[in-house]
């Protein structure tokens, strides 16, 4: 009696051991099949396919962003800021108005550029096709991409000439819009509201410190800075100012912000002007 029982026990154990990986694979497979794996992306003339990026996502992204794209990868607890939750379909770096979905090119640029002062590295060693495919894979996590249209990129007027009047006007905008409340009067991220800021998931978040020489997350050029405050950084307390300032005022603000940064590739002229004007920090009473 004991021998048949032992045989059947061993058989059952073997069946369970062999079946478990298959079952878990089946669950993941069901999830994948049910969840928009047919998603495509379009960047320039290239088309990306989510299903072609599954292995790359597993290799490069899953440790932080998690297998479900919810930002709960096994390393997420150790890193700050936390990885993006792709299920929400909310992204900081966009060329589109606040509240709307970014374009595929926006996501492609973020993947290639990385996000400074975070654990998101620049993935530009990956091939263009790999990154386009990964854009499609990122999109497939959120239903927003099937229920909403992507936003239309904002129009950015040509950058005007940098003049002392524009730098001074930019300082006035900085004061009027009360940027100093978060970023501080000298751009040191030590404004009176800085310590109270939280993101859309109620996690503490710091404003950008212009004085430490770091690159803004969404790009370093003047156009990138313009785009940041005219589209806002969705998911963070940084709003869009598109309804509050005119395009020429936005350019003035760009020039003034450059004076707060240490010397870099982009701000030599602005810093010279600030020196000539003897610019002082804005007053907190403004």
């Amino acid at each position, binding site marked *: 009696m004991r021998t048949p029982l032992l045989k059947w026990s061993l058989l059952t154990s*073997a069946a369970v*051991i062999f079946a478990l*990986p298959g079952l878990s694979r089946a669950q993941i497979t069901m999830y994948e099949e049910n969840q928009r794996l047919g998603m495509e992306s379009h960047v320039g003339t290239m088309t990306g396919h989510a299903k072609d990026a599954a292995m790359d996502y597993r290799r490069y992204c899953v*440790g*932080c962003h998690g297998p479900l794209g919810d930002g709960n990868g096994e390393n997420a607890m150790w890193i700050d800021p936390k990885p993006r939750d792709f299920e929400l379909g909310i992204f900081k770096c966009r060329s589109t108005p606040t509240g709307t979905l970014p374009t595929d090119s926006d996501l492609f640029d973020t993947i290639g550029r990385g996000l*400074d002062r975070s654990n998101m590295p620049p993935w*530009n060693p990956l091939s263009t096709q790999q990154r386009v495919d990964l854009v499609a894979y990122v999109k497939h996590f959120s239903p927003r991409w099937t229920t909403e249209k992507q936003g239309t990129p904002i129009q950015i007027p040509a950058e005007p000439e940098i003049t002392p009047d524009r730098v001074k006007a930019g300082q006035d905008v900085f004061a009027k819009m009360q940027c100093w409340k978060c970023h501080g009067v000298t751009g040191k991220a030590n404004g009176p509201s800085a310590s109270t800021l939280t993101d859309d998931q109620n996690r503490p978040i710091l404003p950008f410190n212009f004085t430490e020489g770091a690159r803004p997350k969404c790009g370093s050029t003047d156009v990138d800075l313009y785009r940041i405050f005219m589209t806002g950084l969705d998911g963070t307390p940084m709003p869009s100012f598109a309804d509050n300032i005119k395009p020429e005022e936005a350019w003035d603000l760009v020039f003034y912000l450059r004076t707060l940064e240490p010397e870099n590739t982009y701000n030599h002229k602005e810093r010279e002007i600030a020196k000539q004007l003897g610019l002082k920090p804005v007053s907190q009473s403004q």
Partner: protein
Amino acid sequence: MTSFQRILAGCLLLAFFTAAGPNANALPAFARKYGLRCSACHESWPMLNYFGQKFKDNGYQLMNDRDSPIWQNNGYWPVTFRITPNWHRESSDKTATDQSPTGEQQVTANGFDVSGLDILTGGTLEKNISFLLVPSSDETGAFHFESVNARLDNLFGSSWVNIKMGKFEVDNIVSEKRILTISENGGGFEIYHFIPVNDSNIYGQIGDNQFGVEWLGHSVNDRTRVSAALLSSNDGNVDLPNNAYSGFFAASQAFDAGKLGTQRVGFYAMVGQAPTSFLTSGGIPIEGGGLGNKSFSRVGFNGIFYVGKLDFQVVTQHGSDNAAFSTVSAGETARNSVWNGGFVETHYVYSPQLVFIQRSEWVRMSQQADPTVASNLGDVDAYTFGYRYNPFMNARAGFAFHNEYSWVRARGLAPDGTDLTTSSVMLGFDFDF
């Protein structure tokens, strides 16, 4: 135990080794620092992918303003240990023995063993100042320094100016230090260490880490890479060098090939001088007493090619040693040793957890130092295949179930002057943490 029970036990064991799980990898110290899985940098550890190569070329930095050690938890320690307990079988078809009536016989040995230990420490001392220190022991625990170097990265804010000094692997894009095969016969690339018969030049082995200073420049996305190194011609040995120098130059270009992936092609050259004799005291060579420097060269092409899950690493070499390096007897007219060789290594990366490996190698003498010997004396053919399975993958440690077979034939090197064939079989647990 009945036959049925034996079969079932075997199935259970097989199931244990093949059960799905998370993924596995390389310098876990780097993975711990950045919160990335090891698979982000390694095609299959320890072999680098393009992202990992860029990380290395940036001085072990992601260039995300978080590379300076001040951003790390105080408890973080940039150290990794790697070792491989294993079972292996070594066989040589013709070994000289006293017991054999013909003076030679086949010798085969097998059993459990352990590899040497690598202690890898590396990373940043400060932003754009990086280091690598690798004390390494053989299987008896005798240590040496495999790598010791510090590097100034991105000088003048440019990825084109990086200066490294110390002991380091020369800039081979197909790196032997990250080889996927580790058996006695298969644990190195033949052409990286080839020394012709009747040739004493040990200083041209591009697979050995060397002492020197290296400039490396690369584009921001690491697609274009160039390097030039000035090396002491002492084959990476410490203490007094030999007053001879060589240079190692490399350049490569990677390009996207659409759905196929990113391909890289390049060339390398090691040219220099090395001593052909030594000052002696009591008949023993004096350290640093090298004399009679003569020239040598190793030049070739290399490439890494991807076709979906397959990738091919190709290296060729044309080598030449001055006749003065020869050990030809007095009265014979020595010639330059000249040879050509290379290898093709193929990987099928089923997933970051499972990689199949195959390598074919060859070296062919085109001119012997000794004109009286057979033209193919010392020619080498080698064949290696195996696979590595990583049952888990995370950012903390790596473990690979390693299986490998390697076969090498050297023409005319058996004691009786016929071909010598050796083979290795290895099953091991290759782990690092």
